[in-house]
């Protein structure tokens, strides 16, 4: 990864470096960045740094295309929020926007040039049935019709099966928690919901506090096993930490919040790897204050695995270890997600489903549309 992806990482870390790339380097970097979902981000960084004019014209064109696409998604998600405000008008309690939709709607630090495939909503568990009913009445249909998939989501997961609007084709994930019911870490979403702040422009919706944005992003990255987006998610974390960490009170709150929610480990991994890959400026000793750190041996092993996995998006980055690492982390994400007596039958069922050509829930390794 060091060599094959060095230029891409350098560009994300120090955007001005892009002005010195030769054509050959760009030929690799543009493809790697596109596959990892960070080409739009590179474009936004180039523009921010004022070096867009110094880039080769064909390269800038690709970035501008992605910035255009990101602009369209931002308009689209805002329009969806107008619609959804009406659909969910009578629902009690807050409706939280998570990840991509929250970044775009509230113009949070990772938003510039970032693409996303679906809208993630979080409601209190007591409201999930009412929310689903309101959505269905307004034309949102469940995309998984298989009885097993429905049961898998409803019984064990922290979200309902993805829903799609019949006319607008938008995909929406309705969550009641940030980790599955069966996960090793039990998270109580109530404090996140309680602390959230309402969006002035879309008062039906709220976004998590800055601390909770970081914690959710890190938890999603290190627990869900969607490694084809791993690098982009780490870029999100880096962007948030850079923007928020100027405020010393923020970091204190972040550490305290991680402790309170039991999310110290993903925060530790998130800060450690953001710092290692992107030199995120974090105060010295901050990592040592993180609750639930891994031990030295475990840290060394996980470093190797995560580094290999961050490089899986494009074939030119992959090393012989990448495939193995991705597989181990895939198993790890399931291990964290469910206890063995549920996991083993589930994986067997999915593996069988794959052989007979049926798709099954919870096991998709990501598709092109799943940006």
């Amino acid at each position, binding site marked *: 990864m060091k060599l094959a992806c060095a230029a891409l990482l350098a560009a994300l870390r120090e955007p001005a470096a892009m002005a010195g790339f030769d054509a050959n380097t760009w030929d690799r970097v543009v493809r790697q960045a596109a596959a990892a979902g960070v080409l739009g981000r590179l474009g936004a960084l180039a523009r921010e740094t004022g070096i867009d004019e110094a880039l080769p014209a064909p390269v800038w064109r690709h970035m*501008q295309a992605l910035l255009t696409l990101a602009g*369209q998604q931002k308009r689209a998600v805002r329009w969806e929020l107008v619609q959804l405000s009406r659909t969910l008008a009578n629902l009690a309690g807050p409706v939280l926007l998570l990840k991509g939709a929250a970044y775009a709607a509230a113009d949070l630090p990772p938003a510039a040039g970032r693409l996303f495939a679906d809208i993630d909503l979080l409601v209190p568990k007591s409201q999930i049935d009412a929310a689903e009913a309101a959505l269905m009445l307004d034309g949102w249909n469940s995309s998984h019709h298989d009885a097993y998939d429905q049961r898998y989501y409803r019984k064990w997961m922290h979200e309902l099966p993805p829903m799609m609007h019949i006319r607008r084709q938008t995909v929406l994930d309705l969550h009641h928690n940030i980790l599955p019911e069966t996960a090793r870490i039990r998270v109580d979403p109530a404090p996140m919901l309680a602390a959230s702040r309402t969006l002035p422009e879309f008062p039906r919706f709220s976004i998590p506090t800055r601390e909770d944005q970081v914690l959710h992003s890190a938890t999603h990255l290190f627990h869900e096993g969607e490694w084809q987006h791993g690098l982009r998610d780490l870029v999100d974390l880096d962007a948030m930490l850079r923007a928020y960490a100027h405020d010393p009170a923020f970091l204190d709150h972040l550490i305290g919040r991680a402790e309170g929610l039991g999310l110290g480990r993903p925060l530790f991994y998130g800060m450690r790897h953001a710092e290692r890959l992107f030199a995120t400026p974090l105060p010295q000793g901050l990592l040592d204050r993180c609750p639930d750190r891994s031990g030295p041996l475990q840290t060394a092993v996980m470093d190797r695995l995560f580094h290999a996995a961050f490089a899986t998006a494009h074939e030119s980055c992959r090393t012989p270890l990448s495939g193995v690492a991705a597989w181990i982390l895939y198993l790890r994400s399931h291990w964290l997600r469910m206890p063995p007596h549920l996991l083993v039958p589930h994986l067997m069922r999915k593996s069988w489903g794959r052989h007979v050509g049926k798709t099954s829930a919870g096991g998709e390794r990501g598709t092109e549309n799943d940006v």
Partner: protein
Amino acid sequence: MTLKLGDLPREELCRRLARGLTLTTGPFRFRLQSRQAGVAEGLATLYADFPVLEDTDFRDFHVRVDRVRGPRRWFRPQVNFWFDGYAPFTPLPADHAFALLEWGMNWCIASHAHHYLLLHAAVVERRERTVILPGDPGAGKSTLTAALALSGWRLLSDELTIVDRDDGLIVPLVRPVSLKNRSIDIIRAFDARAVLGVAAHDTHKGTVSHLRPPAASVARMAEKGRAAHIVFPRWKAGASTRLSHHSKADAFMHAANHAFNYSLLGRLGFELNAALIDACDCWDFEYSQLDEALGAFEELVA
């Protein structure tokens, strides 16, 4: 002097194609990779005048057409198209390899080049007057475009009209003209010098064959055009040649509805499209005889 694809002996072409050959078409550089003889054949026939670049240059799209793995590699062999390792289509019979490459290249542009406004229309030019030909499938757009290209008109594109966001000018793409079914024989009969590639039969569009673009059009692929007319052609059996005014409002809506990325561009898409329609005279054009049609087009740019 730039190296042209036609300068490469066939073995050299196949050798380069196996490891990756960089081809320029309009503003895009493709790195093409294939071990299929049909692909080399198609390229040698249709892209002979196109410049070939060094492998150290930046390429916009890295594409590959090759046999699929598994039993269908040998039994009723199939090929697929890969865009930088990702296969967006389902495999096709091996003898459709070149047609699949052409569709794949179109897909690359239509689904990535959002730096431009991309309209679904052919573009030709004569006396520095660029004419855009939007057309529904079956309207005879490609046949007319091929006939114009064979009659001294400059070919900019037969399917994708590329509008530059900075100056509103039309960016040439210059690729082989895709002819379907009866059009193939019509164009052969129209001009005996027309060079056509090997036909692919029983595709989802029927029989498809491509016309080699004129060398003069290829040589001018970097020169943008200024649109003067938008003509909606319609071939109708027995119809007499007739050019009549088409409402600008309708032309605007048609272009927007048939564009690949109009709404994606948001306000910019509206502004580019509006400026284009404002600058053009818009026409309906009904015809049945190619010769008469060409005469009418000559008058249009006289």
